[in-house]
Structure formats: C-alpha cells, structure tokens
C-alpha cells in the first residue's frame, strides 16, 4: 500500500496562455483510489493526457514503477500497464459491445493472427465474463452506437479494464450516468477494480462519490494541486470548499 506506482515531478504544459499544468508533483500509491477534483479547465484531463502519452509535458517527468515514461507514445505506455477511459466514451460504433471488449483483449494479446476469428472461444469467454462483471451481459450483442450514455460509459471502462492494467486512469467515469444509477455504477466499478487489484485515478465531479470511494483526493486549481489528502480532511477544508466544492455543488445542482 505504501509503495509509489506513478510519480509525476514538476509537470508543466501551457496552451497559449493557459497553464493546464503549472508544476504538478504527485505520487500515486499502489492499490489506492485517487480522486481528482477541481473546476473545469483546471487541467485534470490534461494530467491524464500527459500520463497516457497523448500530450507531452513541456517540462517535468513522469515515472511509472520507477522507470521514466515521459513523452512516450500511448501504445508503449499501455504496454507497461497503464490504461485509460474517456470522458466521451470511445467505442467502436460498428461493433457490438462484446466485439468491443474482444478487440481490447486482442490489443492486449496481440492481434497478429489473420486466420483465427476475433471471437475465438477463449476471447469470447473472457469478454463475456468481463461484461458480466460490469453488469453489461444483457447488451453484449447490441451495437455500440445503440447504447444509452450510462452503458456506453461502463463499456468504455470495461475495455480499459480488459487490457489488465495495473494503473487505470478514468476521466469522469460517472458523468452522463443517470443520478439514480450513479452509486450502483460506482459500486460495480469499485468491486471490479478491487478484485483485479487495479490502482485507479479518476476525475470526479460528484463529491458523494469521492467521499465514498476515494482513498485520497487531489484538488486541482489552475494547473496546480491545491490540496491533497484523505477525503474527509480535504473536503472539510474551508478553502477547498469555497474554491472548488462550492462551484462543484453548484455545477452539479
């Protein structure tokens, strides 16, 4: 629980005049669930994008399991065991949910077998099992472009989990999920991730979700980490409440 899985040091990245990362220092511990909160435009997604290789920081380093990964191609970073899900679900819309999951398995196992079907028994089995864990069995054979937002979100995360990462970065896993289903979705998610011993970093706007599931919270503000610690302590901080949560609660209302 105490060893560092991912370590970011002095990350900086500006778009024009906007500082999306202005000296980010952060350690992610093995096995923890770390929530990132903060107003829109604070640079939360930018952190995920830098960690997964989509954006290259202008300064600073990121290391994973002790080895530097700064500026590597997304593909190489995935190969090391870091996966991500997306705020806007990125599904293969011409495929069924089952095939989407199987494609993720193929990505992990290597796709270079031109004569064996994608839905070979072993992969089909694994994909079905994965969807079942996410409660998506009923829509396994539906086309990905025919799903509602909540299901698309879960399918998107399921695909990331199929890669068997040790670190999973999730960009707003509950946005777009109906309020009534939200807790259930997170419950499912937490169970799956704990069972698979995945460390998770997730951007979240719902403070109830944060309080209940995060081991630690990092508060983002204008490209900096304004506060970091256990949810109870951080969320009780008057500064944080005024700067961030007020806005969040307001935005959520």
């Amino acid at each position, binding site marked *: 629980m105490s060893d560092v899985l991912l370590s970011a040091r002095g990350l900086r990245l500006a778009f024009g005049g906007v500082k999306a990362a202005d000296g980010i220092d952060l350690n992610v511990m093995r096995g923890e669930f770390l929530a990132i909160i903060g107003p829109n435009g604070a640079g939360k997604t930018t952190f995920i*994008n830098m960690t997964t290789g*989509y954006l290259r920081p202008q300064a600073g380093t990121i290391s994973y399991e002790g080895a530097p990964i700064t500026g590597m191609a997304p593909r190489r970073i995935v190969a090391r065991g870091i996966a991500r899900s*997306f*705020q*806007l679900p*990125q599904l293969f819309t011409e495929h069924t949910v089952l095939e989407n999951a199987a494609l993720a398995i193929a990505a992990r196992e290597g796709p270079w077998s031109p004569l064996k079907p994608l839905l070979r028994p072993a992969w089909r089995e694994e994909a079905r099992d994965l969807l079942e864990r996410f409660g998506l069995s009923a829509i396994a054979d539906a086309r990905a472009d025919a799903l509602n937002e909540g299901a698309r979100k879960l399918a998107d995360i399921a695909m990331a989990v199929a890669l068997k990462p040790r670190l999973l970065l999730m960009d707003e896993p509950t946005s777009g999920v109906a309020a009534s289903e939200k807790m259930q979705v997170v419950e499912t998610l937490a169970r799956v991730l704990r069972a698979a011993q995945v460390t998770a970093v997730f951007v979240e706007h719902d403070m109830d979700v944060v309080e209940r599931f995060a081991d630690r919270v990092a508060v983002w503000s204008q490209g900096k980490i304004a506060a970091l610690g256990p949810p109870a302590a951080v969320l009780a901080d008057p500064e944080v409440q005024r700067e961030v949560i007020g806005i969040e609660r307001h935005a959520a209302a």
Partner: protein
Amino acid sequence: MYGWFEENGLLLGLALLDGLAYAALVFMVAVGLNLVFGVLRVLNVAHGSLYAIGAYTAASLGLFLSARGLPEWASLAVLVVAAALVGGILGPLIERLLLRRIYAQEPVLQLLVTFALFMILEDAQKLIWGTQPVQNDAAMRLLGNFDVPFAGDFIPFTAYQLFVLPGVAVATLVGLAWFLRRTLTGRVIVAVTTDREAATAMGIDASRIYLLTFTFGAVLAALGGALSSPTASLVPGVGAQTIVLSFAVVATAGLGQIEGAALTALMIGLSRSIAVYFMPEAEVLTPYLIMVAVLLIRPQGLFGAAETRRV
C-alpha cells in the same frame, strides 16, 4: 549557367508568366473545392466538371451572342455571366437533389457519389459540345498584347493572361478572406467549418449554409473555367485534369486553408509551366511529385494544422 540563361532566359520568362496565369485559374477552382469540403465535409469530385461546363458555356455563349451582333467589348462580361449561370443553376440543383441525401453516409460513399456525378457530367459535356475543340478567344484578343520587360528584353504576352486572370484571383482571395472574417455569414461558415456540431447546436441553420457554400464554390469553379476559355481550345477531359490538379493543391496546402491554397496553386502552377517549356514529358507529373514531396515532410499539408482529435 550564363550561357544557359542567354539561350533560355526569354523562354523562362514566358514560362513564369504562363505559370502565373495558370496558377490563378487553379487557385479559383481549388479554393472553392476547399471551402465546400470545409463546410459540407464532402469532397466534390464533380467540382472539375463545373469548371469544364463553365468553360464550354462561356465559349458557346460568347460565340452565340457575337453572331447576333454583341459588341466585342462585352465579351469579358459574357464570361462572368456564363459562370454565374452555370454555378447559380447547377450548384443549388446538385446540393438540393443529390448531396442533401448523402450527408449521413460514410465519407467514402459521399466521395463516390460525386465521382458518379462526375462521370455523368463528363458524358453530358460530350453529348452537348461534341469531341471537336471549341474555341472563342474574343476576350483575350480584345485586350491585346503587352510587352513585359524581362532581363533587358521584352516578352510580348496577352494582357488578358497578364492582368485579368491574376487580378481576378487576387480579388477572389482578398474578397473571400474579407467575407469569411468580417461578415456575419462568413463567420458562420467558418464556425461550421471548425466545429459543425457546436455550430448547429447553437442554432445555425446548417442547411442554408450548405446550400450557400456549395453554390458559391460552384460559381468559383465555373468562373475559373469561363476565364480559362479564351486562353485555350476546349476538349473533353479538361474536367478530369482540373479536379486532379485542385485535389493536389488542397492536399498539398492542407484542408481548410485559403491563403495556403493560393501559395500552393502558385507553386504548382509555376512548376507545371516550367515543366511544359523545359521538360514536357514531366508536365503531368509535376503536381503529383510536389504533393508527394510535401506530404512526405508534412503529413498534414504545408499549412494544415496537425489534426487534434478530441478525447
């Protein structure tokens, strides 16, 4: 080197002048193609046919009217009228009756529908104008020649190609830049180009903008053709040649670029005409070679921004 220039200097001058005039025409077509692609997201292969039909119509209309006593000074105006007719009629027809049905289709299929239209229009031209060359250079004769001083000598060159063609192209460039940046409709067009979803979500009437843009692009193509008609005799195949060239310009410049298209058209126009004079067998190849060379170095085109995909 000195000896070469002594011998070929005037030829080079002529090639440059020719290239400039040619680049002006290429720009007119390519910029319309680019604009239409930016807004409708349909790469219109039939754009070259509009150029060809514009050229044929201008030539025929001129011949028809002058046979009925149209004064010679009006021959320039005839070119513009022909272009407006062709673009103004065919443009809306094509957008409303054909393109409208395929906006939801895959890009490949959209491209192929316009390819089909291109095939139909090619044969239609042959049926209407035949395969014999059609020529009407009244507009060019009207303005006479102009002696261009070059390297201590003079090159006689038609005033039409020297002033009218580049003049219209520059006016189009400036006018278009002004229109897109300063007028409301222009800004709406830019907004739709940059982010169609956001623009339509904001209540922009996309359907009207599509019609307007396509018609405008069609008029530009037809105008390019009409303006080209006095400088050469028209034969079948001019549409195919034009569309390939404008695709090359658009791909080389990068999608959505106006000033970029102008520079690229100039580059391709000049190199092509230098090839015509000094290495005729490479004429067909120059645009392709330039495009391949540019895209090798800059995959998004000379002026295109690297595509930022939303995640």
